[in-house]
């Protein structure tokens, strides 16, 4: 499948960021895309240990994801498997890698999510198909406006 990479510069030392990544107290403060509550955060941050997190979004939807820690190297790197608990249509198990690097203002965090059979798509990504996707998306968005929403069902 494909991969997603995100980078954040955080004004906090790596040890604090790492702690927030793997402790239930930390995770319950940030896991989830909006200010809805984290309902469950269980972690066992060691190689082979499991985690499980459940959050409710502000629109009422509840989502659970779980996985296994493959590498836990404080305060530098955590690698874990990741999947939605109830996502029958999803891509299955993904690999999440979070790397922390000390920088002047604190920490540079690099997040990568990829599928296990990722190589051809990752290469494609590097060659720049994401730009094509954006372009095509714009095109389809315009087409939807032009032809009505039911054109792209």
């Amino acid at each position: 499948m494909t991969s997603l990479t995100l980078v954040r510069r955080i004004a906090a030392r790596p040890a604090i960021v790492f702690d927030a990544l793997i402790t239930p107290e930390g995770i319950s403060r940030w896991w989830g895309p909006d200010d809805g509550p984290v309902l469950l955060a269980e972690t066992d941050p060691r190689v082979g240990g499991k985690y499980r997190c459940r959050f409710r979004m502000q629109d009422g939807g509840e989502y659970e994801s779980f996985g296994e820690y493959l590498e836990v190297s404080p305060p530098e790197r955590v690698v874990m498997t990741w999947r939605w608990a109830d996502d029958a249509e999803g891509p299955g198990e993904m690999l999440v890698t979070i790397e922390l690097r000390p920088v002047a203002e604190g920490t540079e965090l690099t997040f990568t999510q990829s599928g296990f059979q990722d190589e051809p798509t990752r290469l494609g990504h590097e060659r720049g198909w994401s730009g094509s996707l954006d372009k095509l998306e714009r095109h389809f968005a315009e087409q939807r406006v032009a032809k009505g929403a039911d054109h792209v069902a």
Partner: protein
Amino acid sequence: MVNHELQLDRTFAALVDPTRRAILARLEQQDGASVSDLARPFAIKLPAVMKHLDVLDRAGLITRSKVGRTVTARLRPEPMKAAMDWLRRYERFWTASLDRLAAYAETREAAARKAESEENDT
């Protein structure tokens, strides 16, 4: 669903190749093009273009119709939209979550510094 996964795999695999992306970009500009039209900008032979069209067709990204001896290819947006929805779903989750993680860690850092400076004062 396995079928859904297979469809996404095919879509992404089809998009890996630069010639196929160029063909899609061309069909984005032009609603329907003949195979020889599509082959013209490339330094490859017609059979090679046909092979690329086979891949795009299997991925459901184009449709082909034949009138007389002319095969016309058209863009079909649905699989592309599914692939984009899939990408965006993860991107939304992690983009927002990492912003919240950063804000939380920065609060903790500020508290830690305050505690450290108070320790130094005593």
